[in-house]
């Protein structure tokens, strides 16, 4: 797809879009925020005035073109205005995660050399003050909520409202300068800089240009037919690229309204009150909501419970087909309509999803049951696959082609290729400019032709054109017979069972796959209680014959499902064991974000892996554990090693040759 060097109609920057919206949809709401118990709203016209005053105030404070302005706070209209005002004056906004500790902020603020900081409240101001001695370029801080800061030294501190007032007072003097700076902004100028969360090493500053942001927003808005009357709820961290695209890029491109919740605690109530039409959440949010619904249904009356069960079973059967517009019999349609009246409608209303037209989930794999639950209710939940470096969009699922195991087709304007090792590469108008002050990383991620490595291994399904992500590229290996080994693919399938908390699959370079499994104490414990199975400890429960039997059923089910996959059928699990302790970040077995650290587990439990491959029936083991206070102890157990049935398949060597 050709990349236009200039946008149509001179709309080449976020401030330009702001002025267009203020002229064309001046009276439509642009922002709402619940404050003092009421939804306060600002039209596009008012938004333009607020942002202009702030921009003039920033010039008045001495912001130069090319300066970095860090923005720290939760989703509030004022914070979004700060980002746009920063761009208006030719500076580069850098939103930070507001829950980051002062130490983490110090690195980012120092790395970008921010001269100005716009902070939401005392909490954020205190953090910056704590580290300001180390920040050589830091000069002024603007704060939004004056509470508690009356006694602070105000030589470098400024209140947001005062900055706006001063800017407004000096409008005669600075307006020409502001217009001049705005006129200089084009597709190539920087729109925003976002720091990647940094799972490996220090965070990297991803520089996104206006082209990246506006083209991505435009393409994705067309893809999902987003219009000016959408309502979204802005609640995800402002430092995350997704929020920037949804709440700034797409909002300014389409001219729709961004709603900010009153506080993090009131989110569910605010969600219901707004009833967004376009919604985004990571899988864990959907998961928690589903769990809450299920727990509350357990407490419901008999009649309600039966109604819920009956109609949910029906929804599971026909809901997704109705959503996709596939043919469904009249009888089922009628029953679904009835169900909508009695169950689905009220449930969606409780969840705040009554009006959702397009919903997205991304970030990690979502369990098929969770995904299907929402879709069967008639909520158009889809998956997308993206990265900060791509300005979010790499692949998205088109309406009517939604599945839980793929991440969709390339987004408009995105080209995909898979290299020999299976790693996914993409090229698009959204591809980032560079990592700030890190030419080396830029070069190793983005090649001269603009192809970017995702670090994920995957393949494109030949019949549908959908991309399937298998695993992180560095974890993918080969089995002894040459077939593909992708541990996470199998582990995810296992983890979708509520009984299984964590799974680790081994088999790189071997002829068979083996697995460690952690049971989920709350789910299995609940099951044990209901079935009158007594247990005294995690270890005892994990070793209970009935539990082992259940887990074996799960593993065999997974094997059957894995066997259907041509490329990965070699990854079926031949033998497994249920670990006597939970994998724990304190023991170094998981990262703090609960990701499995494969190498460390492999070393630590070498005896268990050997026993699995050695064909023994049980093994005695002792494991060192670290308590939360740092003391060490050890636990011992005799673990059963269990065989699981596998589905025989012809190996895929032929295809490889």
């Amino acid at each position, binding site marked *: 797809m050709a990349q236009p060097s200039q946008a149509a109609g001179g709309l080449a920057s976020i401030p330009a879009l702001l002025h267009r919206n203020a002229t064309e949809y001046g009276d439509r709401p642009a922002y709402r925020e619940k404050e003092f118990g009421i939804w306060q709203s600002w039209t596009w016209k008012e938004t333009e005035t607020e942002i202009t005053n702030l921009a003039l105030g920033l010039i008045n404070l001495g912001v130069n073109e090319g300066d970095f302005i860090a923005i720290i706070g939760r989703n509030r209209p004022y914070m979004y205005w700060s980002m746009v005002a920063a761009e208006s004056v030719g500076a580069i906004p850098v939103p930070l995660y507001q829950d980051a500790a002062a130490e983490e902020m110090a690195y980012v603020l120092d790395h970008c050399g921010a001269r100005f900081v716009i902070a939401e409240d005392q909490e954020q101001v205190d953090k910056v003050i704590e580290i300001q001695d180390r920040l050589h370029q830091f000069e002024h801080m603007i704060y939004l909520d004056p509470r508690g800061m009356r006694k602070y030294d105000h030589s470098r501190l400024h209140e947001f409202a005062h900055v706006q007032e001063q800017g407004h007072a000096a409008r005669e003097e600075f307006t020409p300068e502001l217009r001049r700076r705005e006129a200089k902004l084009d597709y190539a100028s920087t729109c925003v800089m976002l720091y990647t969360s940094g799972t490996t090493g220090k965070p990297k500053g991803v520089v996104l240009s206006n082209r990246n942001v506006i083209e991505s927003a435009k393409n994705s808005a067309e893809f999902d037919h987003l219009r000016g009357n959408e309502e979204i709820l802005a609640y995800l961290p402002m430092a995350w690229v997704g929020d920037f695209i949804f709440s700034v890029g797409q909002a300014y491109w389409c001219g729709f309204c961004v709603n900010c919740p009153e*506080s993090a605690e009131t989110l569910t109530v605010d969600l219901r009150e707004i009833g967004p039409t376009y919604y985004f959440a990571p899988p864990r949010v959907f998961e928690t909501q589903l769990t809450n619904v299920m727990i509350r249904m357990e407490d419901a009356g008999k009649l309600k419970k039966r109604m819920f069960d009956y109609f949910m079973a029906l929804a599971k059967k026909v809901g997704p087909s109705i959503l996709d517009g596939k043919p469904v019999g009249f009888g089922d349609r009628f029953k679904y309509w009835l169900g909508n009246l009695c169950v689905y409608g009220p449930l969606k209303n409780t969840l705040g999803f009554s009006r959702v037209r397009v919903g997205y989930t991304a970030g990690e794999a979502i369990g098929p049951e969770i995904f299907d639950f929402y879709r069967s209710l008639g909520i158009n939940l889809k998956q997308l696959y993206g990265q900060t470096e791509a300005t979010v969009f790499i692949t998205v699922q088109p309406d009517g082609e939604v599945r839980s195991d793929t991440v969709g087709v390339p987004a408009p304007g995105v080209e995909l290729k898979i290299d020999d090792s299976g790693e996914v590469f993409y090229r698009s108008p959204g591809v980032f400019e560079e990592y700030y002050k890190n030419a080396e990383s830029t070069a190793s991620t983005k090649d001269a032709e603009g192809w970017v490595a995702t670090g994920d291994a995957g393949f494109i399904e030949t019949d549908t054109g959908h991309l399937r992500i298998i695993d992180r590229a560095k974890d993918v290996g080969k089995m002894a017979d040459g077939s593909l080994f992708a541990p996470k693919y199998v582990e995810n399938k296992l983890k979708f069972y509520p009984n299984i908390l964590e799974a680790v699959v081994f088999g790189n370079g071997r002829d068979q796959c083996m697995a460690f499994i952690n049971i989920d104490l709350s789910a299995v414990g609940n099951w044990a209680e209901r079935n009158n199975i007594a247990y005294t400890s995690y270890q005892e429960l994990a070793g209970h014959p009935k539990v082992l039997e259940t887990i074996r059923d799960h593993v065999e089910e997974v094997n059957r499902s894995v066997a259907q996959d041509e490329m990965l059928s070699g990854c079926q699990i031949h033998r497994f064991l249920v670990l006597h302790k939970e994998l724990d970040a304190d023991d170094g077995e998981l990262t703090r974000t609960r990701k499995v650290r494969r190498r460390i587990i492999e070393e630590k439990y070498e005896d268990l892996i050997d026993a699995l491959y050695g064909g023994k029936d049980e093994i005695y083991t002792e494991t060192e554990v670290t308590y939360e206070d740092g003391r060490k102890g050890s636990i011992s157990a005799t673990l059963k090693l269990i065989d699981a049935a596998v589905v025989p398949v012809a190996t895929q060597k032929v295809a490889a040759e």
Partner: protein
Amino acid sequence: MSNEEGYVTADGRKIGGTLMEMKNITLRFGGVKAITDISFDIKEGEIRAIIGPNGAGKSSMLNVISGFYVPQEGEVWFKGAKRPPMKPYQVAQQGIARTFQNIALFEGMSVLDNVMTGRLNHMNAGMFQQAIWKGKAEREEVENREVVEKVIDFLEIQSIRKTPVARLPYGLKKRVELARALAAEPMLLLLDEPMAGMNVEEKEDMSRFILDVNDEFGTTIALIEHDMGVVMDLSDRVVVMDYGKKIGDGTPDEVRNNQDVIDAYLGVAHD
């Protein structure tokens, strides 16, 4: 207003002249002397603590200030004038609000309605107007709701705005009580053991709120508290009572080193 001069606190706040003065207060219940000849003052803008062991007469003292008890002897001076014996609601109208040791909220009502009751003194539409909710009644409701919402925002209880008080945990109920007292926009705020029964985190929150109230609205605060750490950190001046008598008065440091106070708290051999 009294002409007595104020002072400047250690953290640089300017404290004004005397707001309230207790002169030789004695309170008797039949033959029992709850308070014996106590005098002290509360200055504008300060945080004044009243401490003492159990049964020292602290709550009685607070009830004298709030007008619930009328002392047999002595005078209460408020804003430079001697206060005649008053009903508690008249005291409230003068700008004194309080919280209670054992939470006294309307359990069945929502947080919002409870806090709205703190505005009663600011509403004077008649019953008939209230009933049809037109004109003055509606206008007043809107105005007062605005004040209440600011308090709710200030104390960060937005998420429980519509929750019935009975469903709240103890720590939050205490905060709602503070909200109701604040909604009255008092000059003098009386807090009867605001931290009693709280865990460390709740105590920290409450301390923060007390300091913020004082800082943000300039409200004078008189509080009774058992937790010495809290008292010493929060208050500007402390009155110490024991067996109904005043045994110490001064800054936290002065009081801490006062031998009588140490004896009262640690106990001393009686002859």
